[in-house]
């Protein structure tokens, strides 16, 4: 079953900006789906329309088969959303924010209180339940928004940059939590600028750019598009100039002890190290210059920019 089905979705703002140019998108039930794109690509507009915060110009949206027009009560009751920006009353106590949200979904007060306790404990906020939300740290506020989005047990959860501005330790614990929620059957749509996050967690992805979906496939297939990968190599000995390698074209000397090499898909790291060794260059350590998804993303979105500039 499809958790989300978007067809021919258009949005033109009053300013004349065409944010969405007729996108089609399908997300399967149980998926962990990445919706990626540069700033201003149309991701948040798309999420805003699904959530009922933005009026669309035309097109259809269905959540688990229910139209957001004709069956908006059913459709919305299956959806939970964590927006990019904090959108709660910062003067309200943490517990009240989550319980009230359950109430808006028609969850009776007794059940709402129980669910609130469950999610606040799971997200490490229970001891802050009586604090005003404005007293929480940035990371706690993000977790509060996740608890609020989950309190009515949605089947589809949209996370719009949920880990923005969160330190790495907390980010990793949030990843574990999201994976756990997904394992329990909740379909998740994630937008993020941390592509490492999307690569690690998502099974499928779509890239949206300038209001169009320019790629929609499984993460594996997406990464296969990467026909080169760039590595940074740290060398044992001093190097005056970039070495000339027969099989590798793009070699940049970064400093006296490091170089950057683009490795084509047909060659392996062993080939590279072997060729360097023939020139008496010893590699001590190495790392990916960027994560693989980031490289695909940059290539695809740069192509679109070039095409529109032309």
């Amino acid at each position, binding site marked *: 079953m499809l958790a989300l089905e978007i067809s021919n979705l258009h949005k033109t703002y009053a300013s004349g900006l065409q944010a969405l140019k007729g996108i089609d998108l399908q997300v399967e039930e149980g998926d962990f789906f990445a919706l990626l794109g540069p700033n201003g690509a149309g991701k948040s507009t798309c999420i*805003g329309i699904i*959530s009922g915060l933005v*009026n669309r110009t035309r097109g259809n949206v269905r959540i688990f088969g229910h139209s957001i027009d004709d069956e908006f009560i059913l459709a919305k009751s299956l959806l939970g959303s964590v927006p990019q920006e*904090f*959108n709660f009353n910062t003067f309200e106590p943490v517990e009240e924010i989550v319980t*009230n949200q359950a109430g*808006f979904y028609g969850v009776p007060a007794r059940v709402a209180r129980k669910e609130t306790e469950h999610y606040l404990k799971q997200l490490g906020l229970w001891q802050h339940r009586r604090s005003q939300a404005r007293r929480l740290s940035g990371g706690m506020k993000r977790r509060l928004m996740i608890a609020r989005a989950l309190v009515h047990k949605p089947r589809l959860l949209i996370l719009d940059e949920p880990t923005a501005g969160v330190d790495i330790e907390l980010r990793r614990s949030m990843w574990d939590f999201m994976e756990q929620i997904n394992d329990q059957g909740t379909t998740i749509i994630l937008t993020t600028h941390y592509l490492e996050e999307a690569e690690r967690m998502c099974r499928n992805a779509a890239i949206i750019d300038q209001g169009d979906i320019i790629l929609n496939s499984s993460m594996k297939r997406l990464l296969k598009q990467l026909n080169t990968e760039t590595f940074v190599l740290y060398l044992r000995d001093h190097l005056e100039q970039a070495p000339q390698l027969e099989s590798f074209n793009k070699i940049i000397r970064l400093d006296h002890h490091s170089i950057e090499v683009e490795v084509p898909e047909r060659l392996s790291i062993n080939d590279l190290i072997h060729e360097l060794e023939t020139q008496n260059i010893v590699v001590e350590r190495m790392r990916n210059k960027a994560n693989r998804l980031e490289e695909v993303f940059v290539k695809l979105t740069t192509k679109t920019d070039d095409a529109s500039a032309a």
Partner: protein
Amino acid sequence: MLYRFWVAYLTITRKEIMRFARIWVQTIIPPVVMVALYFIIFGNLIGQRIGEMDGMLYIDFIMPGLVMMSIITNSYTNVVSSFYGAKYSRHIEEMQIAPVPDIVILLGFMTGGVVRGISVGIAVTLVSLLFTEFSIHNPLIVLLVALLTSCLFALAGLINAIFANSFDDITIIPTFVLTPLTYLGGIFYSIKMLPEFWQQVSLGNPILYMVNSFRYGFRGTSDIDLLTAIIVILFFIALLFSVSLTLLARGTGIRQ
């Protein structure tokens, strides 16, 4: 389904009541202090020199109007500030994203305004007992007019908040429209004192109908026919309710 909407309505209402109750020093006390000053200055000090109006002591004459003024101002202010605040800090999205029909949102905010208006009205009435003797001609009329008037101004506050783009916009209507209409709505004088022309002009002021029907409930005397007054109030409620609902459905001011 109806139960779900009922829970949502109760949640919005409770949230609204908690909002003003949490800051009662800012929301309940100031109108009570202000009306106490009106009673001291206009009722006691100046009122003694005025003597009687409409066959009663001046302080007894102005008492219902002062209570009504508090109800009007507070039901309006509650909704305009709460709804605009929710728009400004974007927590209105909590309701927009949930399966809450617009009419439930509307009724929830309206009830919050009514509860504050009536709470302040009760507090002001209690304060008035320090200055006048308590007497009610018809308690049902008092209750009915108080409820209808607070509904009407809660709706007006909501419409103001929907169109407001800044905090200045939520003070313009109360300052330049609501206050003058309230003062000219027969709180401090009977329109029978006015020349014929100004009596006719005064009939165009909807607040006159509310103040007079409220005074009828307390004192049994009014410049306006009671039934006419109730019909006028109901007409404005129906009008503002329809406008509010249409604006919410269109997403005016809250959806791009």
